[in-house]
């Protein structure tokens, strides 16, 4: 009997699921492919929803609790869809001693959310990062993938206010 016969059906005819399947196939649908597969899902869909977790768990014959455990253990995985904009404030040591806490406080003030949260209308997420490894440019803030070196609280505020204004 082929391995594929026992596989659950794809959640939808979205082509991205075939790529997810490809990752699992590359690992022979072995249980240890769980993290790799979740990475693929997150890369393609931006986050892991319930449907994705159920599909991956069933395909790899991993208990759903284990898939959920892994998805929540690693900070890199998100169970919520990404916001329109993302602001990452690095809270590594070098950034911290160069005033990253003030940047984060200002960002919280402007967006009205805590780190790890998204504004109610889904415009922007605020994330506090452990260390981006760009310590020479501290304090580092990343706005939608673009690194801002030696950012000031004022620059952070201006940038975030622009995001909010566009949404209005």
């Amino acid at each position, binding site marked *: 009997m082929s391995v594929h016969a026992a596989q659950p059906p794809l959640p939808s005819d979205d082509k991205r699921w075939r790529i997810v399947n490809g990752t699992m196939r590359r690992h022979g649908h072995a249980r240890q492919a769980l993290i790799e597969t979740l990475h693929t899902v997150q890369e393609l869909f931006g986050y892991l929803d319930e449907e994705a977790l159920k599909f991956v768990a069933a395909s790899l014959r991993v208990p759903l609790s284990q898939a959920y455990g*892994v998805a929540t*253990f690693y900070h890199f995985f998100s169970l919520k869809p990404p916001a329109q904009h993302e602001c990452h404030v690095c809270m590594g040591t070098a950034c911290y*001693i160069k005033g990253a806490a003030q940047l984060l406080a200002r960002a919280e003030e402007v967006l009205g959310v805590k780190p790890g949260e998204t504004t109610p209308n889904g415009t922007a997420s605020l994330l506090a990062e*452990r260390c981006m490894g760009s*310590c*020479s440019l*501290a304090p580092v803030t990343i706005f939608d993938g673009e690194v801002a070196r030696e950012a000031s609280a004022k620059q952070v505020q201006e940038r975030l206010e622009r995001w909010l204004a566009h949404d209005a």
Partner: protein
Amino acid sequence: MTLEELERIAAGTKNARAAGGHEVNVCLAAGCLSQHSDALKEALEKEARKASASCRVRGTGCMGLCSAGPLVSVEPGGVLYRNVKPEDAPAIVRSAGGEPLRRLQCSRDQAFFQRQVHIVTENSGKLDPEKIEEYIAADGYKGMIRALTEMTPAAVVQEISRSGLRGRGGAGYPTGLKWGTVAKTDSAVKYVVCNADEGDPGAFMDRSVLESDPQRVLEGMIIAGYAVGASRGYLYVRAEYPLALKRLETAIGEARQLGLLGINICGTAFSFDIEVRIGGGAYVCGEETALIASIEGKRGTPRPRPPYPAQSGIWGMPTLINNVETFASVPAIVRRGAEWYAALGTPKSKGTKVFALSGKVKNNGLIEVPMGMTLREIIFEIGGGVPEGRKFKAVQTGGPSGGCIPEQFLDRPVDYESLRELGSIMGSGGMVVMDDTSCMVNVARFFMEFCMAESCGKCIPCRAGTAQMHEMLTRICDGRATHKDLEMLISLCDMVGATSLCGLGQAAPNPVLSTLRYFQDEYLEHIEAKRCRAGVCECGAAAEVRA
């Protein structure tokens, strides 16, 4: 692939480069790239196409002085330019081979460059990390071929032992001893794992090595595989390092194509292949047993040792785990011999160490120095000292497992033992300089917050202890603590350190203990006078002054 073929590739690459005229090298490692060095490279290429004299633009790895990026070098001649912008491209291309542009030039005569010794970073900033021929032209894979064709596995282990190399991940366990343990195990299946889950805040050595010279790490792993009798390797890389991941995938593909990875490498009976595994952003996965769990697709929680991974690692098989920098040191040792390596450094700590120098220091960036150099030489000569006329207060080494070293110990040599005596650790190589605007109690609280958040929760001393210690430190910072809290904090430090399951919890008290040891007066000021001399904490008097 034989040595002759390798040398043919090397000679061909060198000739092509020599015939290509002047080389304008642009740093495309993460630091400069985030300053848009890719756009700069395009601008330079456009100018080079227009220029009459032959001039070739290349993307290279990290040139070290990241705070002055984007960096560009012109070879031959060794001219280095700092803070280069795309509009500088025409002038740079025009001047290649002639008089250097004074307004952009960054002197190579300064201590930052002169005091370094490059082994792990010898190719960094000099070659294109996505071209295996350039690595080969720089004597790459010679060490591996020497090991595979002229040495027995036991001889390779011997060579590493004699070099005195110790684990660069931080703990400093003798590498040769670790290799020997795995080599001696009787198992048909063994694994080699490269720990590239660089999680210490303030550390970016591994990132830079992987982005600048990925083949070096692969070569080190292959040699290790041969020495211990493994045929499969895993490279566990942080998901936060997409560029390093991309370059590694390219490097592995190129090595396979040349038969340097795969079945019967160089026509020998030895087969070895490497697979990349992406981490999930959990700091604890830097701990070896947690890392193994993660490679197996599980939550990255540590387990008690023994058994050590050398006996029972991935899927219960003997597993050799070394850090990126350790593997990156291996090719040069095998190629140039253990004696050459052992001549560098101190009696107990041989060779060189890469540090990520950052914080309140003039020259931020990546440096490699012989073991035994003093902290003062590193911070004040190479680093250029504390900027803006501020006063040096402490240097933090070893990340959340390390400590803060004050001024009176700046003349101590940097080696595993000295740093431990001072209440810190070598750690993976993060070195963050702090001046008098940093509050040491607040710094201790910062690291405790880190450990609390990153505790995996498996054992209670770490899970609950770090939370309690964080709460006490917060009370001290806020001016709400009593002497009783301080006593309790000290006793908790002992308890958590002694009873936690893995290194994360065992070392979590270190930042508190080291700041208490050298900066106790600051703790007492917060408690008794409700005062933060650095003006960082919002406690009583300081808050009033600001208001």
